[in-house]
């Protein structure tokens, strides 16, 4: 295998994201969504009765709920027809629940993840890697020393079997109930795979835990569920990366993420999303933060045809803190509608939201955010900053914040700016001998630096690489 940094230096970055594999799967549900489909998924996973009941209840809610339409400037979802989506594909692997060793995986899956640099990333002393290829976790490993401390990192299907009580209590109950929105209900009905992370009291996992999801079949949906439970005084950084190769039919990704931040615990959740440009990325991500807990969301949205993603934090305990850092980049044909939601439900809670967006080649970015300060959440403060950069006149950059303040002893500030790439900046860099492309790339890299510096080096490099890739076409 290659040396530590080799995958980061790979010259043919394009190849890492554009390749696709022949489909070869053991089991495929009929297209579309019926009660039968849901029962088959559940049976195939040998799930306990309560999980099947939750799936069926979610299915009923999904059928009754309207599409999230009629919002000002919401992305066009008219093309999203659940009847066209195959919700569940299980790759052809002998062992249910993933292979223990990387080498046991089918060659083409290994190859896919190799190109994405997953095993190398693991070798770089990451705590554990969960890779989801289509719907099931195929490879997962957790370094032994974390396991000894009681840290659990396994795929969600396994967690349903082995950690039933924890999952039963936390799975789509208090945090993201299926009734939250239509796609959360869909997710509740057909979810498959994802990660389960449990950090016991007083434990600090001082290396990032990461998972990688990838869709390879055309016209499929991916509905992975991530559940993170961080007990009192614990600390963890979870990283998720996503990508899918390009296909002509559209894909649907509707993941669910639930995070429970215990008293004085600290969770950071980082994502770099690079779904192919025909994917509808409609996620529901939420954290509940207890007293003095800290939740940090770091999200990069680069791919997908349309994204609607608003990671939210409920600051439930006094003194809880939320930090959001988001970056969105929309190119040709992309509509990246993303932002943040924070509910201040207790006194002395704090939140900061920092959003950066780049629109080019006719792409659209929108910051849509909600800050709610409930009556009684005294001495809370929130600060929202949105900066947008536009490359050309075909692009659109919107900012739509909503602030709801029911408490007077608060400090609320929202600021946003929109501008084009500064001619003077470009001129300055050119006068120092850089060509136009490099100058613009450098300015963009500087623009998003507050985000990249929050990420571990591999992800920061990957994010920069992705941005370079995105920019090459337009600026060449």
């Amino acid at each position: 295998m290659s040396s530590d940094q080799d995958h980061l230096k790979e010259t043919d970055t394009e190849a890492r994201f554009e390749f696709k594999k022949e489909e070869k799967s053991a089991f495929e549900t009929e297209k579309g969504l019926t009660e039968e489909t849901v029962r088959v998924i559940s049976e195939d996973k040998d799930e306990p009765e309560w999980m099947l009941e939750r799936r069926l209840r979610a299915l009923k809610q999904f059928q009754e709920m309207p599409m999230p339409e009629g919002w000002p400037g919401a992305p066009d979802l008219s093309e999203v027809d659940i009847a066209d989506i195959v919700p569940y594909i299980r790759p052809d692997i002998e062992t249910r629940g993933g292979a223990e060793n990387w080498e046991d995986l089918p060659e083409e899956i290994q190859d896919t993840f190799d190109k994405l640099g997953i095993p190398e990333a693991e070798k770089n002393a990451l705590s554990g890697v969960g890779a989801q290829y289509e719907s099931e976790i195929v490879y997962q490993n957790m370094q032994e020393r974390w396991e000894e401390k009681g840290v659990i990192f396994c795929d969600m299907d396994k967690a349903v079997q082995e950690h039933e009580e924890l999952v039963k209590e936390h799975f789509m109950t208090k945090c993201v109930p299926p009734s939250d929105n239509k796609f959360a209900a869909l997710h509740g009905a057909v979810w498959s795979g994802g990660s389960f992370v449990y950090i016991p009291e007083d434990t600090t996992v001082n290396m990032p835990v990461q998972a990688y999801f990838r869709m390879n079949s055309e016209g499929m949906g991916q509905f992975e569920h991530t559940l993170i439970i961080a007990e009192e005084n614990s600390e963890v950084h979870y990283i998720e990366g996503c990508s899918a190769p390009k296909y002509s039919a559209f894909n649907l990704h509707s993941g669910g993420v639930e995070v429970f931040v215990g008293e004085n615990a600290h969770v950071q959740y980082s994502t770099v999303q690079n779904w192919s440009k025909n994917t509808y990325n409609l996620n529901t991500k939420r954290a509940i933060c207890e007293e003095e807990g800290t939740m940090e969301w770091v999200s990069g949205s680069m791919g997908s045809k349309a994204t609607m993603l608003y990671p939210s934090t409920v600051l439930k305990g006094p003194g809880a803190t939320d930090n959001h850092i988001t970056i969105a980049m929309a190119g040709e044909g992309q509509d990246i509608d993303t932002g943040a939601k924070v509910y201040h439900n207790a006194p002395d809670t704090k939140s900061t939201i920092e959003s950066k967006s780049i629109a080019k080649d006719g792409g659209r970015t929108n910051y849509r955010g909600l800050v709610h300060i409930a009556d009684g959440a005294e001495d809370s403060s929130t600060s929202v900053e949105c900066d947008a950069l536009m490359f050309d006149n075909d692009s659109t950059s919107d900012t739509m914040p909503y602030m709801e303040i029911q408490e007077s002893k608060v400090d609320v500030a929202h600021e946003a700016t929109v501008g084009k790439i500064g001619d003077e900046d470009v001129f300055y860099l050119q006068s120092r001998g850089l060509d136009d492309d490099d100058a613009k790339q450098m300015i963009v890299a500087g623009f998003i630096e507050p985000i990249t510096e929050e990420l571990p080096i591999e992800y920061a490099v990957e994010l920069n690489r992705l941005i370079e890739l995105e920019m090459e076409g337009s600026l060449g």
Partner: protein
Amino acid sequence: MSTQVHATLSEDAVEQISEDLGEPEWLLETRKDALAALDDLEMPDVIQTPGRKWTNLDALDYETLVDPLDYAQDKDRIDAEGVDVLSWSDALDEHGELIEDHFGSVVDTERDYLTALSTALFSAGTVVYVPEGVDAEDVKIRTTMNSRSLFNYTLVVAEESSSVTILERQTTGEDTEGDQYYSGVVEAVAGENAYVQYGTLQNLSEESYNYQVKRGHADTYGSIDWIEGNIGSRLTKSSVETRLLGDSSESQIVGAFFGHDDQHVDIAARVWHEAEHTVADLVTRGVLDDEARSVYEGVQDVGTEAWDTSSYQRENTLMLSDESEADASPKLIINNHDTEASHSATVGQVDAEDMFYMTSRGVHPEKAKNMLVEGFFVPVLEEVAVDELREDLDQLIYERLRE
């Protein structure tokens, strides 16, 4: 609700109003169309987030409340030299063609349910016509509402290179009791290089529901400034809008509100940049006391052809009571990259350090707070070029603080 028998909403009532005002056929037809459209029209847009509707417009049964044929009011129009400030009937006689050209050209007569209701039933109207090259200051329109419902319409046409400053005041007469409904539509057209400043000071009774739409079109080098002062009413839903249609046109929207008791103030300031080198500046400041609630929406929409746009927006809300609530949503919609745009919004309370400084200088805390609130409005008041409006607004704020 009153049991008094009154005329109901009907085509006959609309015909009656139109006939009383001596209107031409086309206007009657426009009114009838608006009346007929009521069934299909929606209430004006209100911001909704999960679990929260920012303004409830359904609290009032408009069709039952309104009395189409009772539009008792006092109107006091003060004109300036060279400008025609006319009542609706006089204006129809003197400027029939001008009205036909512009009526409904800026505000869609069937924009929503409440606007269409206003189109069908308006009985009080004013036309301000500023001929080419005329500079006029201190046009004043004072409306005192003496009936249960009043529908007001104002048209301002400023010809090329003219300028005009208009001050409108809305109050309620002493004998009026119970729920009332005031509806006002203002259309402003600023021709090439023309300047219109339109200030409103709304101080209606706190039993009244108040719906207003003010919208202007600015031509090349034209400029439209709005000042929106809201002190009265139980519920206000007001939209102030400018379309910058000509190159180098400009607009400023200045807002001030002070809500107390259970008042609800919903204000929107919207600007569309649709030509090159346009400039917009939106500034709103509001104070909330008791159980008052405010809703603010700001929209800066920069179109594809709006090269070299500058657009700024600031909104600040000061909360004096723990029972008050403030919602704000400043929106940017940018379709041209040659744009410099920014917006900001804050919500907070009287600064503790400022209070400490004042009280350490021996100022009584109550007085210190009042001084700081008055000071909070200064940046907005400074933008108000009409002396009378500024002084009156200042006075009303002063009075409210000492109630």
